[in-house]
Structure formats: C-alpha cells, structure tokens
C-alpha cells in the first residue's frame, strides 16, 4: 500500500484539481466456482493499479486484449467491485470519497457523476427501446425532472452530440441509425446527467475510419466544453495519441509504463512498450520500422509467480528480474513512470 501511495505522489504536481485517485486497485476472478473447491485459482485481471486523474484530463489506458484495461474501467464506474484497493472520487461537496465499495443510495448518487461509453454501438442499446427511452433512462432511474423536462434535456443532449434536429431521432429505434449515429446516442446517454467523469471503452474501434474521426473530435470537444474527464480505453495507440494527454500502458493486469502521451509514444522506456510500439503499422509505405521481436504471446495471469509479469517474453530480463517480485512503478525522469528493473 505504501509503495502505491508513493507512486501516486510521484506524479508531477497537478495544475488542476484531483478528480479521481485509484490506489492499489485489484480485481481477481476465481477460476473454479465449485462449492467444494477449497483452493480455487484466481485470474489476476487487474493487479495493484494506481493512478491519478485530474479534472478535465483524458487518461488513456492502452494494451492488448486481456491486459485488464476494460476491468480497470469497469471498476472505476463500479460495474465491477474491486477485490482490493481504493478509488477516491470527488463527491458533490468537493471532497475525495472512496467509492470502491459503495452500496445503495450513495452508489446511486455516485452514478450521476461517473458514466461509461461502450465499445459496440450495435449492442449497447436495447433494440426494443426508442432513442428517447435510451437517452432518458438515466434521468428516469435517477428520478430527475418530469416527463417534459426529460424530453427537453434529452433533445438538448442529442443536439450536443450532433444529432440534429433531435426531434427526427427521438422516436426512432437503434436499428434505424448508422453505427456512427448510434455511438453518438451512446455518448448522449452517458452525458445526459452531466457527469464529471466518463469511461470510454474503445468507443471508436468498431467504426469506419471516416466515421471514427468525427466521434473522436466530438468527444474531445465535449471534454473541453463540459470539463469532463475521460478514462479512454483503447488497443489503438494511434487513437490514444490523438485523444489522451497521458497514457498508461497495461500488461497482464499491471501498469508497466505511464506518462505524457507524446513522450511515451516517441520515447518508450519499458521493453514491452517498445515492442508494442514497434509492432504498430504506419500508414506510410515509405516508412521503415524496426520491429522488436518478443517471444511467445500474451497469457492469462492465473496465480502469477511473484516476478515481473513480462519476464517470460522480455528481451532484456536477467536473473534479478526472475528472483524479485514485479517491479514497482518508478520515476524514470521527467515524470515518466515505468515498472522495470532494467530500464
């Protein structure tokens, strides 16, 4: 715990105020659910993750499938309850409050301030409900406003996300809309309660390139206009480059590197980040890149050994990495954090 606290303090002093602080956040899923299984194995989906998020900032979480990025996001909006750790989140009176284990009315109140946008615009809306019903649902369950006020609020929000005129969308069904329009509806649903924090889980990965840019720009504009903070989850480093001021690279449930986006992308420190970046193709036939080969493939972190998670695949690992626990996130200069003994 003390180690994690040190890490978060190592982040350079914020110019704006702190909105969210994750401290040593972990989520483990039991592999066997049998009643007679006394020693079940656990998947360590997220394993001691700590970071800060400032008000109005966009933090990217990048990594390959199975690295724990989505589980991290789900814990922050309490779609999953952390197994361990704390999530301090600014409440209405401006104080930091641990929301990791909230229940009942306090949890319901928290949900007004933290929302999520999902990856799949085709599955994230109930096909039997109109756009109005979908966007108004948060207002309805939170009992905000009467019917007329909700109608107005929904129309206003649809306008905000570029679905104009709102009246031509209100009473249509999701299947009558294109993928890009649906993702705008999903954003409207997340914003209709004026949250201060939105987890965006790969919101553009299923959209075509000509549609994707519009959604990325919309999200950026909304963040500026409404002062929203995003946790932007993506596997696409190029998208993260455009959306995020800082990024955290995750590998097997751990943050292995974190820092200013451009810094991390142009000058990675951790061997995993280097390998990941070297594998990204660039849309320029003349460009040459020098791929770093790493062995094996991503495994599932079931009861991982107490050593660096990247040890098996690391090109620079040595006996020290094998014999010691996973390295802590340490400052590698100019505010860059990396979890590596060798870097």
């Amino acid at each position, binding site marked *: 715990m003390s180690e994690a606290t040190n890490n978060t303090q190592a982040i350079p002093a914020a110019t704006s105020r702190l909105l969210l602080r994750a401290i040593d956040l972990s989520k483990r899923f039991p592999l066997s659910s049998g009643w007679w299984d006394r020693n079940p194995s656990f998947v360590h989906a997220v394993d001691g993750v700590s970071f800060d998020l400032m008000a109005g900032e966009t933090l990217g979480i990048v990594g390959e499938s199975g690295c724990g990025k989505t589980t991290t996001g789900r814990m922050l909006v309490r779609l999953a309850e952390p197994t361990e750790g704390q999530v301090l989140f600014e409440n209405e009176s401006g104080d930091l409050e641990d929301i990791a284990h909230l229940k009942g009315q306090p949890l319901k109140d928290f949900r007004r301030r933290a929302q999520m946008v999902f990856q799949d615009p085709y599955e994230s809306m109930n096909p039997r409900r109109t756009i109005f019903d979908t966007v108004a649902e948060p207002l309805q369950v939170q009992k905000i406003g009467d019917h007329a006020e909700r109608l107005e609020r929904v129309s206003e929000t649809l306008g905000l996300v570029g679905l104009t005129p709102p009246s031509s969308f209100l009473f249509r069904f999701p299947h009558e809309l294109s993928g890009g329009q649906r993702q705008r509806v999903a954003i409207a649903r997340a914003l209709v309660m004026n949250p201060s924090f939105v987890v965006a889980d790969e919101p553009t990965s299923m959209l075509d390139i000509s549609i994707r840019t519009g959604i990325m720009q919309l999200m950026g504009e909304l963040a500026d206009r409404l002062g929203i903070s995003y946790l932007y989850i993506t596997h696409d*480093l190029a998208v993260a480059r455009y959306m995020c001021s800082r990024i955290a690279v995750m590998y097997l449930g751990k943050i292995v590197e974190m820092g200013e986006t451009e810094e991390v*992308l142009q000058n990675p420190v951790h061997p995993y980040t280097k390998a990941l970046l070297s594998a990204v193709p660039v849309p320029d036939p*003349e460009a040459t890149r020098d791929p770093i*080969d790493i062995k094996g493939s991503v495994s599932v972190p079931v009861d991982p050994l107490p050593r660096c998670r990247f040890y098996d695949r690391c090109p620079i690992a040595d006996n020290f990495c094998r014999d010691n626990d996973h390295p802590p996130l340490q400052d590698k200069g100019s505010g860059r954090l990396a979890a590596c003994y060798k870097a």
Partner: protein
Amino acid sequence: MTTDPVLAVDDLKMHYVTQAGVVRAVDGVSFSVERGQSLGLVGESGCGKSSIAMTLLKLLPDNARLVAGSIALNGIDLVPLSEDEMRPHRWDRISMVFQAAMNSLDPVYRVGDQIVEALEAHSSSAGRDAMERVRELFDLVSLDPSYILRYPHEYSGGMRQRAIIAMALACEPDIIIADEPTTALDVIVQDHILREMQTIQHSLEMSMIYISHDMAVIAEVCDVVGVMYAGKLVEFGPTADVYARPIHPYTRALMSAFPSVRGEKHELVTLPGEPPNLLDPPGGCAFNPRCAYATDECRTTAPPIVKRGDQWAACWNPSDE
C-alpha cells in the same frame, strides 16, 4: 509489365437480390495482379471489398448474381465455370484466408486432420505424405508441430490464423486472397503474421490480394493498392504513389482521417456524411454527397478515368498536386 498477369479481373459486376431491391455490391471493377505482386483493396465496411473476394472464389450465397465481367486466372475465365469445373481451381490455384479465424476451423476435428482432409481432396498425396506436408506447412507458418494433433480451441487467436494460412498454402496456389487476415488480432501478433506472410509470399513467388479497412496494414504489405467506394474502384496505383499523392478526394480524405503513432501529428480531418446505401447509390459519382469538390457533373455523370503514371482515379475534379 510484359508478363501475363496471374489474375485479371475485367468489369466485374456482382449484385445481391434482396427483398428491398438489388444491392450493387461489386459494380464494374477491373484490375490485374502480376506474379509475386501483392494488391491491397482498401475501403470502409459495405464498400464491396469482401464481396469481391467471395466473387473471385465464386463462393457466393444463393441471392448473389454474377451479372457481368470476367475473372481470368492464368488466362482461364472462371465466370462461366460450373461448381464442378471450379473445384480444381479453388484452393489449388486460388485460395483464401478468411476474416473470422474461429469459424474457418471446424471445432470438432483436430487442426492437422483438417489440413490433411483438404490436401487429400485436392491432390493425390495421401496418408503419410499428407501428414509430412502438414508438418512442412506448420514449419512454414511458424507453428509448433506438437499442435498438429490438437483441436482449434487449444489454439490462441494468432495460432488459429496461422493454421488458416497454412491451409490456404497447402496446395501452393498462385494467388491467395486474405480478407482482413489480422483484424481480430493484437498488434504484436498481427505484426508477426503479416511479416511471415510477406516472407512466405516472396519465397514462393505467390501473388496476394489483401483486403482491409486498415490503411496502415495495406501500406506495409502491398505493392499496389485499390481504393474502393460504393462497389467501385475509385483509385488504383502503386502504393507509394497513391499514399504520397492521392488523386481522388476520397483517398485524400481517408489519408487525412487516419491517425498514426509515428511521424508528425497532423490534424485529423472528418469526412462528412455516411457511406452510401448500395441499394440506392447516389447518381454520377457515388462520393459526390460527401465530396468538398463536387460539381453538377459529379451528381449526374459517371466520372472519367484520370491517369498519372501507373496511378489512376475515377474523378471529375482530380487533385493536380
């Protein structure tokens, strides 16, 4: 280019007949692929790029109609061939790597046995010979031979895609069509597989057609690229030329909308509107409702072909950059 192309497609038209009307999925497409060359077809979903793949292999659903055109594979036109006449060509001369790796392998049979079965259906080699060949193929795509007798669910996503590629290579075809071969894979695995495919292609002197929505993947692996929009090729040419100096406004829009991790962080430009409905595409140039340069001609008359070296585009108002 004096050699005969491996594959020459001329004015290919394939339409789907649906309840709502006729969908012109492939609407007059012509291109050719030389031996050893790799062609990329890039475009957004619904532009007809996957339909081209299915048409080239003549693996079409019941409601598809091959309306016009020819597909010359080594000089033999595949269009008039019956299913029986097509069989010796498919997999032997032209094969395919599908998009959804999971569904291309039968979950109840071991992977090695599936490849053996494919081999036996297409050549005289049988039994021990076939198994020996599977071992060679596994080696070629860097799969551990101990996985030959395992089931697809024991494979990771990347290994499954490798097995699919091994299967496509089994009969040493002249040309392989790869439809989004790495779309579902993580970036490191994608990189490995793309590089391996290139190595294999060069060593076997095969031709490839890569079909992808990902401009970056196409840029890395293709010599020639065709940009598709609404069932038509709108621009075609050597990859380096098309990416450096796109003629068609749609190609330019794709370039400026595509983010990159390296190089200068240029501003992303949003293309207005939505891709057209192929049931009722706009008249003239199908891109005209979204095009900043559209004129009256664009709305009424099909655009002419503009050439610049080996590169061409179908546009009324080409970039003269």
